């Protein structure tokens, strides 16, 4: 509840920070202060169960420890993102204050899609989340690729929102209760009515688009590749896991009772996503593009939560959000500092910059899912959830085989880091402050702590 208010307000504050601030770094510090504030406000609500301001939203939003924990993960990751990449946001263009303002509006959208209880608020949340992203994608105005990516993202995004609206309309029409509340949809008994089923499929398609699940993923590589790398990092992590959260929230609360009827659809989407994401990532030469495809592959794993739809899946999703976001933000933070985005750019990083090499190794191992990292625990919880579900055991086998393929492209970067001769002048050592390195080390340590003891996060779900 408080997070919605604070993120929106802080977005407005940030808008004006550019006007009044003299130094270029003021907006960044303001943004960091803002996200710390958001995190604290959210943590207080999670801890006490009481918001600071209470507003009667007529049950349009529902707050529980599950979505508050998720928001804590989101705000924590955004804080890390600001600290690691804040300076690079300043380098994108002139309008630093606006960039941060847009990010805060995205966060407002994230809080809405994490807490909504009506289809209308889902729609509004998705829009608030998407529109600033279209702008951020195109923020590198002189770069044609960035422009193209923004346009592509906007057109595709608008299209998918249209489909979502149509789905909502269908469901509203087919619902005898004539209600937008997701827990008040009368699905009837037995087979879904045609209108209800098509509404469900429309929602499934539009949300699959947002989480870049195959076959609705085609925008992802181009947009992630074209957007300024700092914003790719944000889109590929925080925004993506938020969309997942919206996805599972809708399908659990609204359509959980007819899980069996749409589970097969999810199976198809999951396997297709894993297949396309992993196989295509293998062939990428640019690490940025590889990470775009790997984000599709990781989405395939997160889809297992929708497939399973049990407690373990929800725990897994929160854990996955944290593990995936931390590691990806970390690896992007290192990538941004480089002038060469190909795998060769990483050559000899372990020797020229041992701290970066070592932390990148831990991030990559976590993304691969090696034990003792958060990435393993999250994948493990997802698989456990899928097995617990009891149907389609083969999907688990498919998922682990694709995870083995993912080792191929993550380890290619690892090999470059440790076993190839140093490539000079790829990284500007001046950019690497002590604080940056310490932060990377802390992130890596946190990933390992989470890998050893995931309950430090999971316990909050049941707080």
């Amino acid at each position: 509840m408080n997070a919605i208010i604070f993120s929106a307000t802080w977005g407005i504050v940030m808008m004006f920070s550019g006007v009044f601030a003299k130094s270029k770094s003021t907006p960044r510090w303001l943004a960091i202060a803002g996200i710390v504030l958001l995190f604290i406000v959210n943590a207080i609500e999670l801890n006490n169960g009481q918001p600071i301001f209470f507003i009667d939203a007529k049950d349009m939003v529902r707050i529980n420890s599950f979505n508050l924990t998720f928001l804590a993960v989101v705000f924590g990751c955004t804080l890390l993102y600001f600290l690691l990449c804040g300076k690079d946001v300043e380098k994108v263009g002139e309008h630093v204050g606006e960039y941060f303002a847009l990010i805060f509006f995205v966060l407002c959208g994230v809080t809405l899609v994490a807490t909504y209880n009506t289809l209308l608020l889902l729609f509004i949340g998705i829009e608030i989340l998407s529109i600033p992203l279209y702008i951020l994608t195109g923020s590198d105005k002189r770069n044609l690729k960035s422009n193209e990516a923004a346009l592509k993202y906007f057109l595709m995004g608008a299209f998918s929102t249209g489909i979502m609206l149509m789905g909502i309309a269908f469901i509203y029409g087919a619902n005898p209760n004539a209600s937008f509340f997701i827990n008040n949809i009368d699905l009837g008994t037995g087979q879904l009515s045609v209108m209800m089923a098509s509404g469900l499929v429309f929602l499934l398609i539009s949300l699959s688009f947002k989480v870049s699940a195959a076959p609705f993923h085609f925008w992802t590589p181009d947009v992630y590749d074209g957007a300024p790398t700092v914003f790719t990092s944000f889109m590929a992590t925080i925004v993506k896991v938020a969309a997942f959260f919206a996805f599972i929230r809708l399908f659990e609360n609204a359509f959980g009772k007819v899980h069996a009827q749409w589970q097969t659809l999810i199976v198809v989407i999951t396997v297709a996503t894993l297949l396309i994401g992993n196989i295509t990532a293998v062939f990428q030469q640019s690490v940025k593009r590889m990470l775009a495809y790997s984000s599709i592959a990781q989405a395939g794993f997160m889809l297992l939560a929708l497939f399973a739809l049990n407690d373990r899946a929800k725990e897994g999703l929160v854990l996955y959000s944290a593990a995936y976001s931390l590691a990806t933000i970390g690896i992007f933070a290192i990538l941004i500092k480089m002038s060469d985005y190909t795998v060769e750019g990483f050559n000899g990083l372990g020797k020229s910059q041992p701290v970066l090499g070592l932390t990148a190794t831990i991030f990559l191992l976590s993304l691969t899912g090696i034990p003792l990292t958060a990435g393993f625990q999250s994948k493990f919880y997802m698989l456990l959830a899928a097995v617990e579900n009891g149907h389609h055991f083969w999907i688990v086998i498919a998922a682990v085989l694709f995870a083995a393929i993912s080792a191929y492209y993550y380890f290619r970067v690892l090999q470059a880091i440790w076993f190839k001769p140093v490539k000079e002048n790829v990284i500007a050592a001046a950019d690497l402050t002590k604080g940056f390195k310490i932060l990377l080390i802390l992130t890596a340590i946190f990933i390992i702590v989470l890998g050893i003891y995931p309950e430090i996060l999971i316990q909050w779900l049941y707080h």
Partner: protein
Amino acid sequence: MGTFITFPELLMWLPLLAGIVCFFFKKGPAVKSFATAASLVVLAVSVTSLFYADAQFKSYNQVNYVWMKQIGNSLYLGLDSTGRLLTLLTAIAFPVIFIATQKNNYKNPGSFYGLMLLAQAGLMGVFVSMDALVFYFFWELALIPVYFLCSKWGGEKRIQSTFKFFVYTFAGSLLMLAGILYVYMHTPARAYDGGIAAHSFALQSFVNSSLTAPEQNWVFWLFFVAFAIKMPVFPFHTWQPDTYDQSPTSVTMVLSGVMVKMGLFGVIRWLLPVLPEASAHFANIVIILCIIGILYASCIAMVQDNIKKLVAYSSIAHIGLMCAALFSFNELSTQGALIQLFSHGINIIGMWIVVDILERQTGVKNISQLGGVAQKAPVLTIFLVIIALANIALPLTNAFVGEFMMFGGLFSVNPLYALAAGISIILAAVYTLKMIQKAFYGEVVPATSAIKDISFGEKAALFGLVAFIFLFGVMPQPMIDFTKDALKNILAVVQ
């Protein structure tokens, strides 16, 4: 309570901590001595644990901390008789390797020895874990240091071949993870203080899991493929010769002496007890695969010119025989396999030490480029001949005891199996003696003209191994007694 620290914990933590400390060393000689000392301490602990094997010392041999309680997982470590055998092998292997390769100078010695000790910690973890998830953890973690060791310090084509090895084993272990999860869903509930987990990862729960016969049959393959890749059993062996060839020899010793035993150990600890019916059901298929592997590897070894690949293929043959023996389910062959598990580790490390000395001094690994080593290095040659004879299981060597028992056991299952596998002994004699003859006798060639005989450290390491070979070749009874408990446990679950 009452026990401050237990043997399994010590065996796992000591190399882990020592390994981490190694990374901070800058100077080569210092880190060498430190790593050797650390591995000797681990050996001392392992030997001490032998005296505390009785039931009255139970509290020293197992420990159980609740870890992730909601999913019924705990850090459950224990040292039973099979575990004791393999931890002892691991504990012996590392100091021997360190002492024998004392002369090798590695770039970044701190990282090299650190990773070696981390690999030891991972291996120890595999052998002492009594919880399926912990087992899986260590199973993968043992692989990571070895991956870095091979890729960083190996031969020319190290990156590709190590990567092939990594992807193979990673895929295998992930399949095993799927299998573990499936068995886990069929385990009984388990209480912890403050609640009940619906299922449990503990070995006992796995053994008591309620899988139907058809379920067992396909879960069996999920586990078996992981173990078969590690051993390796035909047709999952293709990673092995390249990896052995390209790894630095001290890592090859770890791989072939200890790490492949992880696969056999997995069969003993997790496959046979958890899925007994399926194991019996597929025993014939597995044995036939093993025998194909034995013959195939022996034949290829005969035409190998590369000395490292020759030893690699001979190792495939030996491991295949052990795996076949384990699936024969009788007392004789199982005990033979247990003894051979240990003996093969000793012998193959001895082989590699000799190969390492040759490679370091001459810079070649092809048999055709060697010759007349015996004239230049008689002591080395004597050691090699003894170890090579043990490798082909000549009577009075330690390997004879194990192999004889395994053949006996196989014979009682099906004489044809014993016959087919028995051919491998003849083939082993052919390729081993041919190698000795060509590389060590004959005229001195330019590559070997500068060879010096072995140093004190190498002598000591090889002497220890050879003494072991003879001691247990002549007097196998202590080994037989030592493995009796393990044997009883295995047979109890299978029959």
